[in-house]
């Protein structure tokens, strides 16, 4: 029984040892792997390769560690030895515990019995050897070091050359043109983009705007005058450096290029066409959250506007401001004050994606009732030397003036044409309210007379505004006799039947002061919204006047208020009108109008030659040439055909610049066909593909009538002659 318990305890100890030591090794391995991975990242080794290296080191650590601590080879004998060395109470007899009783002589059995008692006593206190604390410490240290190294892994390189030299990759052999032994293409993006330098594995390049590209090319054989032709036009010679050649160039727009060199036998060789796609630095974008473009506020409203916006850019933002313009005054005395305000949060604009806020205190900006605030946000990115600029639409905030009296809409026109004895709409309202208050204290006749007088004032005001709408009637201004009840009734039934009234035919005293045109022409001074508001105001004045004529000022009052509100709005609109135009139409020569004099009009002759040449003449010529070539068994191009294809390639090159990448393959095919680099069957396929591209380039035009033609036989002519004779 005791034997079984002892064996069980030894097995437990063995498992415990393996667990502890296993964990310890794992921590070591993880620490090594983490550290190795971030070291690789720090020296810009690709993540996949870095991961591979880290896993290798991790495996080595596990393997070595396991072997060193006998993780899998530990036996009960080893444990017994450990106990003998470290626990003297067992009297160097722990190894007896793992032996069977049958194998032991009597004396040893006695000793085993004794040792087993001791073992049972000390078992709970047995501590197996381990360095767990050290392992945890190493793991923690490696985490800290990794964190430090990770900070260096994406650091932008201030030094272009130094960084480029660290991770040069050569162009893959399969991508190299023939006769080129090796090539390294280094792309150095502008510093403000914070993009690392890189080497391209391909001759087709894609890079940010303003990047500098360095080509280092070595040839298989000796070559003469190697150069790169950009977009089929500009060529740049390569400079010999050591065994190879080098050229560098900065690109601001997409191009395509081709390598060319002369062989020793003075033949010229061309590579395929390759594309350089330049990714333009986009202008920043601004999105303003929850702000209406037109805001009208009263003095009682909250005059602090919360402005929230999200600013984004592809590489980074550098500056953002709120441009606020306060507009004050009326008529010709309008004044503008512009302020550039910084955002409250964040105080400094930087990063690719920024959420900005600004509380606009209208009172602090100096806005008073009747004033307007125009604001927009302008943003610049970090592009050098000239940053990209974006601005938002203009937002309008209007602080309404409810106290001022509008007497004339001409304020906006710059000339106040309103005579003093005109009562304003507000005055008519005040008088109407006063009349209603005094209704009980005055006689009915007096009430009616005063109501009629007010109606007259309302009429005069209406007529005055009507003039601006081009209404064809005018009326005398000044005291008028009260109208009869019949007239009033008439007015109530049909207020628009007014042309028969003699009073409208009298001349207006304003004629001498006003530059009167036909109504419609005058009306063209106003933009559509003002006209419609003015029309509405005049219509409402009709109603207001009607009830005053009917001696019902109480019913008239709501209409008067409506008219007043509209007139205020028109006044505000007319200010914007002043802002927009200052048009003064030239006066017409009245003496010449409608005379029907055509003496100065003579026969006129117009002649024009408009030869609308077809687009892409060289591509069309090349299409015809290819069609002639295709059915032939031998596809040897004549010099003339080569010239035609070369010119067509130039036209296609221009299209390639507008649409990068679309025709690059075709250009390469043309090059191979012209320089006889392809075999006959390949050449035929190339010609078919070239033909397809050319055809797709041709624009789709609308149909047009054509002149038909036919050969006429003598018999046809005879037939027509007979037909004509029979008709005659």
């Amino acid at each position, binding site marked *: 029984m005791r034997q079984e318990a002892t064996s069980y305890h030894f097995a437990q100890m063995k498992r415990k040892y393996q667990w502890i030591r296993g964990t310890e090794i794992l921590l070591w391995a993880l620490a090594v792997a983490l550290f190795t991975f971030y070291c690789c990242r720090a020296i810009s080794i690709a993540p996949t390769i870095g991961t591979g290296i880290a896993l290798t080191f991790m495996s080595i650590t596990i393997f070595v560690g396991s072997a060193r601590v006998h993780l899998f080879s530990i036996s009960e004998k080893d444990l017994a030895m450990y106990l003998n060395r470290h626990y003297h109470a067992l009297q160097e007899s722990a190894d007896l515990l793992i032996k069977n009783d049958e194998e032991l002589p009597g004396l040893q059995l006695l000793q085993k019995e004794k040792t087993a008692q001791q073992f049972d006593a000390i078992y709970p206190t047995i501590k197996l050897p381990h360095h767990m604390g050290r392992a945890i410490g190493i793991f923690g240290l490696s985490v800290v070091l990794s964190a430090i190294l990770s900070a260096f892994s994406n650091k932008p390189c201030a030094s272009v050359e130094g960084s480029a030299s660290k991770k040069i990759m050569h162009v893959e052999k399969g991508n190299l043109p023939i006769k080129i032994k090796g090539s390294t293409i280094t792309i150095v993006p502008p510093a403000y983009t914070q993009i690392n330098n890189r080497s391209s594995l391909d001759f087709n390049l894609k890079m940010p705007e303003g990047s500098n590209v360095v080509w280092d090319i070595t040839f298989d054989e000796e070559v003469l005058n190697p150069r790169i032709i950009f977009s089929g036009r500009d060529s740049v010679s390569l400079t010999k450096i050591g065994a190879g050649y080098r050229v560098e160039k900065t690109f601001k727009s997409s191009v395509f290029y081709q390598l060319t060199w002369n062989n020793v036998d003075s033949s010229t060789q061309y590579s395929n066409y390759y594309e350089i796609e330049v990714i333009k630095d986009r202008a920043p974008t601004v999105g303003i959250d929850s702000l209406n473009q037109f805001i009208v506020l009263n003095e009682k409203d909250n005059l602090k506007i919360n402005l929230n916006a999200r600013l984004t850019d592809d590489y980074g933002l550098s500056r953002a401001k709120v441009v606020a313009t306060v507009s004050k005054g009326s008529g010709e005395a309008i004044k503008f004050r512009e302020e550039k305000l910084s955002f409250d949060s964040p105080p400094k604009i930087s990063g690719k994606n920024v959420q900005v806020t600004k509380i606009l205190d209208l009172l602090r900006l100096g806005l008073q009732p009747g004033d307007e605030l125009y604001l927009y946000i302008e943003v610049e990115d970090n592009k050098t030397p000239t940053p990209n600029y974006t601005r938002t639409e203009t937002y309008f905030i209007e602080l309404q003036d409810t106290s001022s009296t509008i007497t004339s809409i001409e304020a906006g026109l710059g000339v106040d044409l309103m005579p003093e004895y005109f009562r304003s709409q507000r005055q008519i309202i005040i008088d109407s309210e006063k009349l209603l208050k005094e209704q009980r204290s005055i006689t009915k006749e007096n009430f009616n007379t005063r109501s009629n007088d007010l109606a007259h004032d309302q009429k005069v005001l209406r007529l005055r505004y009507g003039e601006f709408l081009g209404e064809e009637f005018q009326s005398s201004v000044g005291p008028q006799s009260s109208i009869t009840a019949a007239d009033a009734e008439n007015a109530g039934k049909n207020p628009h039947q007014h042309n028969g009234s003699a009073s409208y035919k009298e001349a207006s005293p304003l004629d001498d002061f006003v530059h009167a045109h036909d109504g419609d022409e005058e009306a063209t001074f106003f933009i559509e919204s003002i006209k419609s508001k003015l029309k509405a105001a005049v219509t409402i004045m009709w109603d207001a006047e009607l009830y005053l004529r009917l001696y019902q000022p109480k019913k008239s009052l709501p209409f008067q208020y409506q008219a007043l509100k509209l007139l205020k709005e028109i006044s505000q609109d007319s200010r914007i009108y002043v802002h927009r135009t200052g048009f003064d139409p030239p006066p017409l020569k009245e003496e010449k109008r409608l005379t029907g004099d055509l003496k100065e009009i003579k026969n006129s002759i*117009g002649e*024009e030659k408009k030869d609308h040449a077809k687009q892409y003449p060289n591509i069309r010529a090349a299409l015809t040439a290819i*069609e002639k070539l295709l059915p032939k068994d031998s596809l040897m191009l004549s010099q003339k055909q080569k010239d035609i294809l070369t010119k067509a390639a130039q036209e296609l090159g221009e299209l390639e610049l507008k649409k990068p990448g679309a025709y690059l393959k075709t250009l390469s095919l043309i090059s191979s066909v012209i320089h006889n680099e392809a075999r006959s069957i390949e050449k035929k396929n190339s010609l078919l593909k070239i033909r397809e591209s050319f*055809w797709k380039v041709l624009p789709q*035009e609308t149909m047009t009538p*054509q002149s038909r033609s036919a050969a006429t036989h003598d018999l046809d002519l005879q037939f027509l002659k007979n037909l004509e004779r029979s008709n005659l």
Partner: protein
Amino acid sequence: MFVNHPIPFWLITPVVTVLCIFLVWQESKKPYRFRILRIIALILMMLALTGLLFKPSYQTKKSANIILLTPNYSAIKVDSILVDHPDLMLMHLEQTSPYKNSTRLFQEDLPERANEIKIIIGQGLPRYLLDSFEAKAFHFIPGASPEGITNLFVSNHNILNRKDTITATLNSTDGKGWIKLSGPGGKEDSIAIKNKGQNDFELAFLPKHSGEHLYSLLIHDGDTAYEEILPLTTDQEKPLQILYLLSYPTFETQHLKSFLTRKNHSIVLRNQLSKNNFRYEYVNHDQIRIDRLTLALLDNIDLLITDGETMSSLSPTEKAALEKSIFSGLGLLHLTPITSKSLAEFFPFQGTTLKSDTAIVKIGAKSLSFPASKLRITPTLPTIPVQKNKTGILSGYTFRGAGKVGFQLLQETYTLALSGDSISYAELWSPLLESISRSRSEPSKIRIITPFPWYENEPIDIEIISSKENISLTADSILLPLKENVSFDNIWSARTWVGTHGWHLLETSDGTSLRYYVSGPTEWKSLSIINQQNENKISARPGLEHHSEKIDSREEIPPLIFYIIFLLAAGFIWLAPKL
């Protein structure tokens, strides 16, 4: 008596003789009845066996008429003919498989025996062989229709930037698949094959460039796929000479003028500004006097566009010149209808007046509404409509001699172009203007009579209509001999053989030319067979002559006789011991 000996004679004769002697000796030893009869039966049996092996035939007199087997003939049809006409001789052409002892007929012997051929069965004889027949007194019985394209129509005058079509018929074996038309720019149109047998189809293409182009018809019929090269020519744009005479300018006419100007047409315009004042405009045209309409002026014009008021103001001399010019080919287009009876000859249309002043017309797939004259032209036989709806004809024309008089009742069509639909605007006006305009006379016209496809080293027949007496024709710069038609003057014919496939040129001495494409040897075989069958059908004359002269012929003794003798003799030998 003749023998056909597929097994060598020297081998059969001794074997059969030795076998016969041995069997007779054996039979004579047997102790059964009917010994003599058994020996005779045995000898007969051996003779029948020899007959089966030798296939003997005998000489007889037979009709000299020939049934000529050509490729793709139907054996059932041959048998049926032989039942009715057993004395007819069977012969087959060189590339044709023989049938029932038919003898081979070489092409060079064909002219000699042309008069004996009474029936041709199969795909017939090529045109150049048919020409060697003097009387062509034969019946033609066509073989089964071949798989593939059996009918094709393509216009010789495809027009630039205008949707043109090819119509064709496909004989499908599987009834499942598709046909794709590809042009220089890739796929143009396609259609699914839905039925077994004949499938009519139409495929559209839009030429963007003039000249000769090779299109291809890719046919997937079930599991088989093949490609046919389709040569298409697109004519260059030929601008018109247009004269506008208008009593007042309108935006409609100005816009039409701008549209035509953009397309490089020559335009001379006269707008009346007041009684004696005019506005003259010359676009792509030198300044000419157009105060008065004269025959000389109008002869250089393809199309006169005018309105009712201008027509009313023409003097009698001008009217006479205009009428004469229309008879000789001028086109006259009225933008407003004419109601005056004195001008009826210039507006020979019958119409009805409607209340509505708008019209809905269909242009392509779109239904569009335009302001229109209240008059609608009633459809009559001489009036050819270009645009019409339920209410009547809105634009159309009629012939006056060689010229045409047309009308356009739609108004304010410029709104279409201003709204951005310039394609519909062009589709509305182009067919009308083109139909009415003068057809320019060409000095000559070249036509290839031999139906497409044309092959290398096969004769191609050409016809020329020319007003010139001393016309000459070259094929790829080689002068061809011309033969004038015996019945009609100025109609000439020629024949050429082309050595290589591809594009070739026919050109007359007056500058008229025609480009044509000679197909590769594997292209358009089904169409070629159908063309050949059609030519044989046309050439064949009905009536089979039975009373022709007799010629010597060998007739094979039917093997069935030998077989029956063999069976009877063997049966008797087996039965005799049991009797």
